[in-house]
């Protein structure tokens, strides 16, 4: 099936050197994450830093490996804001999560947690 007017990208932007340097940065950021894992710090703070690092890694992969930086701006604006908005909307779930921490049913005696044989479910 040929797409009429398909524009084959003869000049694939980005040299091998660029890709290797991006790969090195990704590894460095990963090592940073692993290093941070073993630093004692407030959970929320750790989470923010980790998510921030992950976003940077994701942005690097999308921009350079997936070539998005070299596409037209209109494509980036079509795809990325929609995804970001939807993910941010999912965060609206969290107030219910934080509140339910205090609402949990507390067992007087914890029932056995070993795997129960399920005959007739």
């Amino acid at each position, binding site marked *: 099936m040929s797409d009429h007017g398909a524009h084959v990208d003869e000049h694939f932007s980005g040299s091998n050197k660029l890709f290797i340097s991006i790969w090195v940065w990704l590894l460095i950021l990963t090592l940073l994450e692993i290093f941070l894992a073993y630093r004692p710090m407030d959970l929320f703070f750790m989470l923010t830093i980790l998510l921030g690092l992950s976003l940077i890694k994701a942005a690097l992969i999308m921009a350079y490996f997936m070539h998005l930086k070299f596409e037209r701006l209109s494509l980036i604006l079509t795809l990325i804001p929609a995804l970001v908005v939807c993910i941010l909307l999912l965060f*609206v779930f969290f107030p*219910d999560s934080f509140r339910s921490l205090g609402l949990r049913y507390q067992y007087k005696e914890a029932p*056995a947690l070993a795997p129960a044989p*399920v005959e007739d479910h």
Partner: protein
Amino acid sequence: MSETHEGVHRHPAPTGFIRKYIFSIDHKVIGIQYIMLALAAVVVGMLMSLLMRLQLSWPGTDWPILGTLFPTGAPNGVMNPEFYLSLVTMHGTIMVFFVLTTAPQGGFGNYFLPIQIGAEDMAFPYLNMLSFWVTLVGFIVILMAIFVEGNQGIGEWFATLGPSFAGGSGTVGPIGGWTGYAPLSALGKIAGPGQGGGMNLWIISIAIFCVGSLLGALNFITTLLNMRTKGMTLMRMPLTCWAWFTTAVLALLSFPVLLGGGILLLLDRVANTSFFIPGGLYVSGLLSGSNPNFPLHTGGSPILWQHLFWFFGHPEVYIAILPGMGATSHILATFARKPVFGYRAMVFAIFAIGLLGFFVWGHHMFISGMSPYSAIAFSVLTLSIGVPSAVKTFNWLGTLWGGRIRFTTAMLFALGFVSLFVAGGITGLILGQSSLDLPMHDTYIVTAHFHLVMGVASIFGMFAATYFWFPKMFGRFMSESLGRIHFWITFAGVYAIFMPMHVMGLMGMPRRFSQFTEYNFLVNSSGLVKLVTVAAIITIAVQFVFYFNVFWSMFKGERAGENPWEATTLEWNTPSPPPHDNFAGVLPVVHHGPYEFAVPGAPRDYVMQTDVDVEVPSGNGHNGKH
């Protein structure tokens, strides 16, 4: 006279019955297949609603056929409450998924989007065929769910797949509402009848449907962005195309969340996890974790399921209505012989409805125990959707004002859409206020609201589209006289069915109850309930006039030409029905907007999009906005 340019030869026309009508990659055939699927599904859904109405009006009556078909669910022909609830569940699921999400988008959208933008087919014809067949498999699975629960033998056989797949509880499919709220839907067979294999199949069917819809959505978006013919700028597209595009974007972004939630729910049932099951549940006489038959479940959150479901669920209802809005705009303009009033505003309104539709899912959860601060935000945003909806409504009225109206059946249904959308939409504004929703949630006011907008307005949009495009699809007119009978009785009928439900809701009548005989405060409601049922019986009966009209006219209807309605958009530039590649190898070139009616100085009262020798002054006499 119209200008054209050479198209690219894509696929040769198929030969043989199977390639032409069964496994076809032609978007027109696939569109008709979706419509046929919807026509079949709606019969099943209507039958279920009829049974529900009979139970509500005459509870405790023995219905002979039921006793024979469902000896467990309706012993001696008298419906169990569980039987009724399974009807509620399956009616909702089949109607919302297999009627309202297939016909407007997959049916008419598939058929007419490529033609209206001047393309020869969709961007991915094989993916299109796959989407339809995946959706059909989903439908077969949901029908299986009916039999796995309804039939003892089949239900027992299903248990061979795994203990959580056992069925045979005698209900007409799973129980859980079309919303499948946890923890009931997550517990499995221990929770009672209708919670066995049928529920597993329900989840699987919806997951399959998600995949089919997602593939379809990306096909629509790619086609619309990449395959418009020369001259077809985005702002020259018919409003139907804008509606189908926005609907596809909504589907692309909301169905994955349902898929994720559905995976977790299925794991809860099959793998004993507790994503949505909180601790300390006492079910069927057993405390969670105290008995091998009811393993320990702890830590899950039912509200999480509600969030995940409604994050999808709200865009889903806009997916159901937006194509109808697009078709209404299109048809009103054509038969009022006037351009759509405020085309640009209509486009932005479609966008706004689509965008805001993502922000308001919490209004289904006002009484769930969700954070009241979120509720404030959801409430305000829900009310704000009233603004673009009102823009559209006033623009429809503006389109009609001063027009030379031709009252064809399609026009009548389009007018009916406007009426019903307003009727249903107003209660949306009331229910959207969280404080008012507290007493109204789970009453018949909600039922009235969503049936009017989703169940009726959306269907009227599809009826209008059918009567309008039938001559193009089959080269023959539908019978106008039968159409008028269909319209007037249905129009009166749906008002007679759903208007009294507002009264019932204000009386405090709750949803999803199989009978109200035990409640003193509802003693006076039985008259209204019976009225609704009689209206429902008549309305359902007259739909068979429609079915007869459709199938008879396909073969015996009066022949129609290329442009019987004197409309302007690209689909009226092709023969009726269009050839395999829509434009016989020569793609049209577009010079004008989609609704150039009553152009001063033009030779006819309509200017087709492809006409070359006509001057259409721009910015002339419409608010100075363009």
